[in-house]
């Protein structure tokens, strides 16, 4: 008699996260923010499928069960692996069935340990000679990489509880609902690989060493700005309610996220204090503005001087919705999300090669938003 299963996965697969993206009402809005957050310099997302090998399974022991996964992946979200670093993912969850109002409880944990790209496929360490030549020749910047600051990790704990209200009805409204309450707490940390020299000059407009005076001023006052790792914590709690099986479902979820050491939001910068006078903008600064407005992190352009410690550093979102299969073949899905502060906007354009910028490093910005999503599905 089988009391469990073991599954070997090789190739491109979704990590066994506690709450799969597939259980969302739709993929249109309201992702699980702590899974989707893209903080590391490699654009790693926990929720993205990865390429690698994994062993996962399920073992039942009476009313108790264990679910596990151990995976070795490349951490590039399914893209072609451009380095030799490998990442590890592990997950363990324990569940137990109960009798009565409480049907089941599941508790679990996850851990992901990754390395940022330090070597190419040939094993050459980053930055490659071509990178050094480019930055050295063009901007007199000494690019290097510090392997000590090249890892990142995620760890989290999760819980899921199933309840069943005894069947009864209020007029035509059946109230014998099945309810799944769930929650995830997750902590993330990305080292700052620091591929630039602490003493590098900022992009100079003219003069000696490309505006080195300004840079020296910044570095001496707050050198942490240049080697600031990224940390965040957050999670979500939610409820899925089955009002009518196969007919009508309700969802509700609350996401929150707090980022520390994030790139500062210029909106909250020091009023009237500029990183550099507007008149000193470099050629590259001009290019950045041309492509991207004036959004650069770290206040490296003519933005208001942005103090990361004063920045908006948290966001929250509440989502509600329903799925109503009211007549074959039509299903109606409605979802509403209201978010306080946005994550990841704006992002630098990918053509800007700076180890920080190309990562798509997001920030929390002081912009609130509301989304409505209505979808009709026809399935014949």
């Amino acid at each position, binding site marked *: 008699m089988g009391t469990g299963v073991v599954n070997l996965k090789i190739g491109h697969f979704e990590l066994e996260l506690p709450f799969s993206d597939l259980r969302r009402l739709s993929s249109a809005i309201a992702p699980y923010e702590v899974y989707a957050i893209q903080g590391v310099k490699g654009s790693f997302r926990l929720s993205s499928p990865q390429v690698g090998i994994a062993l996962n399974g399920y073992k039942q022991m009476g009313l108790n069960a264990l679910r596990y996964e151990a995976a070795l992946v490349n951490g590039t979200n399914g893209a072609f692996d451009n380095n030799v670093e490998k990442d590890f993912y592990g997950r363990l969850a324990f569940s137990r*069935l109960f009798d009565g109002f409480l049907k089941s409880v599941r508790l679990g944990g996850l851990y992901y340990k990754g390395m940022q790209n330090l070597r190419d496929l040939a094993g050459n360490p980053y930055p490659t000679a071509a990178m050094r030549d480019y930055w050295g020749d063009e901007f007199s910047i000494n690019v290097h990489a510090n392997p000590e600051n090249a890892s990142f990790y995620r760890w989290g704990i999760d819980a899921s509880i199933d309840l*069943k209200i005894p069947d009864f009805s209020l007029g035509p409204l059946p109230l014998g609902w099945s309810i799944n309450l769930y929650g995830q707490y997750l902590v993330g940390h990305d080292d700052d690989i620091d591929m630039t020299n602490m003493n590098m000059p900022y992009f100079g407009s003219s003069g000696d060493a490309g505006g080195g005076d300004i840079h020296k001023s910044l570095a001496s006052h707050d050198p942490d700005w240049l080697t600031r790792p990224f940390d965040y914590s957050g999670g979500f709690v939610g409820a899925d309610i089955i009002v009518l*099986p196969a007919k009508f479902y309700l969802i509700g979820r609350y996401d929150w996220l707090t980022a520390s050491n994030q790139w500062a939001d210029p909106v909250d910068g020091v009023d009237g204090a500029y990183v550099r006078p507007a008149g000193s903008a470099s050629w590259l600064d001009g290019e950045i503005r041309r492509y991207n407005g004036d959004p650069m992190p770290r206040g490296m352009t003519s933005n208001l001087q942005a103090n990361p410690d004063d920045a908006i550093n948290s966001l929250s979102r509440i989502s509600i919705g329903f799925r109503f299969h009211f007549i074959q073949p039509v299903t109606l899905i409605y979802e509403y999300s209201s978010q306080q502060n946005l994550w990841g906007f704006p992002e630098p354009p990918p053509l800007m090669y700076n180890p920080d910028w190309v990562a798509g490093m997001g920030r929390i910005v002081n912009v609130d938003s509301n989304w409505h999503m209505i979808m009709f599905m026809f399935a014949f």
Partner: protein
Amino acid sequence: MKTVIRLLPVLGLALSTAVAQDPPAAQEPDLVLGKKVYLQSCVVCHGISGKGDGIVAGNLLVKPRNFTDGRFKVRMTPNGKVPLDSDLYRTINRGMGHDNAMPAWANLKVDEKNAVVAYIKTFAPKKFARQDRAKEIVIPPRTAATVESIAEGEKWFTAIQCGKCHGETGRGDGVSAPTLVDSWGYKIVPPDLSKPWLFIGGSEPVDLYRTLRTGLTGSAMPTVDGTLTEDQTWDLVNFLDYNFIRPGRSVPR
């Protein structure tokens, strides 16, 4: 060719009989093994205490059987009586079919199936204590599916108003179909007899006969026992089989 066509019903009966064979009798009920199998395979729907309230029960349109009240749909015993061990075994082995979530557990070993049958009976000990007194119905040999028999069956189909639920063309779209509920108040759907799925209780002629004679306890499907004779029941089976379930065959003369 005609001979082959004439033999089809006979072959069908033989096959049906083979499918419906009783399982090997259990030597001794192994309740420890039965509980283990139950917790492994049954508990998520039927619940720890067998009340049909497992963790996924709320997700299912057709609710899992509550074992504690001793009422079962598929039986070789009269309507309302407890089933035989072989009935439970057959359902475990074959699943329930139609729109029901109960899968076939044919992959379990024979002793595991016998053990879980014994364990299921512990949820309604008083009911199953009367199992020895349950009268097993006898299924007589099938009446030949002649044109006359089929015509006779059609007459009974109309007379006892099968179409009220199943529809005049057997599509499950009778006038009463939208309002049907089972004994627990849950909505039920009469099967479309023209679809090649497993009906609750089975789709072979012998299964249809048994379902007609015993009814499906707890559902809207009544028994014809007391309404039709055994031969008339077979006529009705022949009509259903040739018109709805396996149409397209030459009607035998």
